[in-house]
C-alpha cells in the first residue's frame, strides 16, 4: 500500500475522520469539566490547608485538606477512575460525567498545591497591611492576596491543564471513545497502526500548542500592573 492509501484507510474510508473528531470532542469535554472542577476544588483545599486560628495554629480543615491531598496523590489516577466507574458511581452510565468527576477530584489535589504555593509567594507584608487596616481575613484574601496569587499560579496551572488533557487518554479503560481509543480502534480495524496513532499524536500536539500560546498571551496581559 502506498502512503496515500494508508492515509485514506485511516482517515477517509467510512468517514473515519468523524470518529477522530468525536474523540477529540470527548477528550476536550472531559478535560474542560475536570479542569474547572479541579480549580474549584484546588482553591478550596488550598485555603483549607492554609487556614489557621487567630493564634496561628492549624485547624481541623488543615488536616482534612492534607488527608485529601495525600490520598489522591498517593494512588494511581487510572485506579481512581476505575474505582469511580465500577464502585462509587456504578449506577451511572454517563461515562463523561464519571470521568470528569474522577479527573477533577484528582486534579484538585495537584491544583491545591499550586494555589497554595501561589498564595504563599505573595509577600506576607500584604496580608499584614490588610489586617492592620481592620480588613477581615476573608476581605484580605478576596481583595489583596488572591488577585496577586492568580498571577503566580497561571504558568503552573497551565502546565497542570496540559497534563490533564493528555491524562484523559486513559478513559479507554472505562470504554469511553476519546481520541486515543478511537485511534487504537481504527488501527485494529485497518491492521495499520502507523497512520492513526501518529495522527492522534499530531492532533494532541496541535491542541496543546494552541493552548500554550493562549496561556502565554494571558500571562503577559496579567503582568501589566508590574510595569513601571
Amino acid at each position, binding site marked *: 500500500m502506498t502512503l496515500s492509501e494508508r492515509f485514506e484507510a485511516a482517515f477517509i474510508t467510512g468517514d473515519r475522520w468523524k470518529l477522530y473528531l468525536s474523540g477529540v470532542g470527548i477528550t476536550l469535554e472531559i478535560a474542560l469539566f475536570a479542569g474547572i472542577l479541579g480549580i474549584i476544588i484546588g482553591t478550596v483545599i488550598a485555603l483549607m490547608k492554609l487556614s489557621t486560628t*487567630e*493564634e*496561628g495554629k492549624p485547624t481541623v480543615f488543615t488536616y482534612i485538606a492534607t488527608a485529601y491531598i495525600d490520598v489522591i496523590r498517593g494512588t494511581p489516577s487510572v485506579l481512581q477512575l476505575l474505582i469511580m466507574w465500577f464502585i462509587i458511581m456504578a449506577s451511572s452510565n454517563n461515562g463523561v460525567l464519571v470521568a470528569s468527576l474522577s479527573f477533577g477530584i484528582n486534579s484538585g489535589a495537584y491544583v491545591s498545591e499550586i494555589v497554595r504555593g501561589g498564595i504563599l509567594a505573595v*509577600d506576607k*507584608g*500584604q496580608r*499584614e*497591611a*490588610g*489586617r*492592620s*487596616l*481592620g*480588613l*477581615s481575613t476573608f*476581605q484580605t484574601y478576596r*481583595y*489583596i492576596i488572591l*488577585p*496577586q496569587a492568580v498571577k503566580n499560579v497561571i504558568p503552573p496551572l497551565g502546565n497542570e491543564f496540559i497534563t490533564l488533557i493528555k491524562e484523559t487518554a486513559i478513559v479507554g479503560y472505562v470504554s469511553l471513545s476519546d481520541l486515543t481509543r478511537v485511534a487504537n480502534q481504527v488501527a485494529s480495524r485497518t491492521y495499520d497502526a502507523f497512520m492513526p496513532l501518529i495522527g492522534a499524536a499530531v492532533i494532541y500536539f496541535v491542541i496543546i500548542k494552541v493552548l500554550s500560546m493562549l496561556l502565554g498571551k494571558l500571562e503577559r496581559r496579567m503582568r501589566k*500592573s*508590574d*510595569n*513601571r
Partner: protein
Amino acid sequence: MITVKNLCKEFIDPDGSVNKVLTGIDYEINKGEKIVIVGPSGSGKSTFLRCLNLLERPTSGNIIFDGEDITAKGIDINKVRQRMGMVFQNFNLFNNLTVMKNITLAPVKLGIMNEKEAENAAYGLLKRVNLVDKADVYPASLSGGQKQRIAIVRSLCMNPEVMLFDEPTSALDPEMVGEVLDVMKKLANAGMTMVVVTHEMGFAREVATKVLFFDEGQILEENTPEEFFENPQSKRLQEFLSKVL
C-alpha cells in the same frame, strides 16, 4: 489611651527552643503623646509595636486600649485595628491596586465611607503629601519615599486615633528619609498620638515626648528626649548612644 501590662512574647524557634523576645513590659501611652522607641536590633522593639495591634499575639499580659482589654477572648480585633494605623518598614502597598484604590479600599469595604467620600478624603490627604498626581498609578512605579508617604496616607484615611510606625525610614535611600520624616513631623504637630520605632535619633530628639530604650525584651530606660540623650543613666544606653550618635 493604651496601657500595657506585663506583656510577654515568646517565639518557638525551629529547633524547639523558646526565644523570649519580650519579658514583662509595663507602659502607659497617653493621648497626644509621641513615643519613640530605640534600641539595638533584636531588643524586641518591633515585636512590642506589633503586639499593640495584635499582629503578634502576646504570650501573656494585657493591652488595654481605651478602657477595653483587646487581648481578651471575644474581642473583635478588626474593629480595634480600624482605630490604630500602622506603617511598615517595607511600605506594604497593595501591588495589585492603584494608589487611589490602596487608600480607599479599607474605608469603603468596611462601610466607613462610600466610594465618593473616600476618594475626596484621599485627594485631600494626597495633597498634604504632594502626591495627587500619583493617584492613578500602581505602586511599582513609585520611589520608596513616595510609597511610604502613600502608606501613611492609607492609614490616615481610616481616621485612626493612634499611629504605629515600625522603622518607617529604614528601607529608604538616604535622600528620601527627609520627605517621610517631614510628613511624620506634620502629623505629630497636628496632635496625633504616635508610637515610632526608629533609628532616626534626630527625629526622636525633635518630636518625641518620651523616648524608650529597649534592651533584651525590657524597657531599660525611659525619659524625655533632652534627658535621654544628654544624661543616659544605664551603661547599656550610654554604649548604644555612643555607637549611633
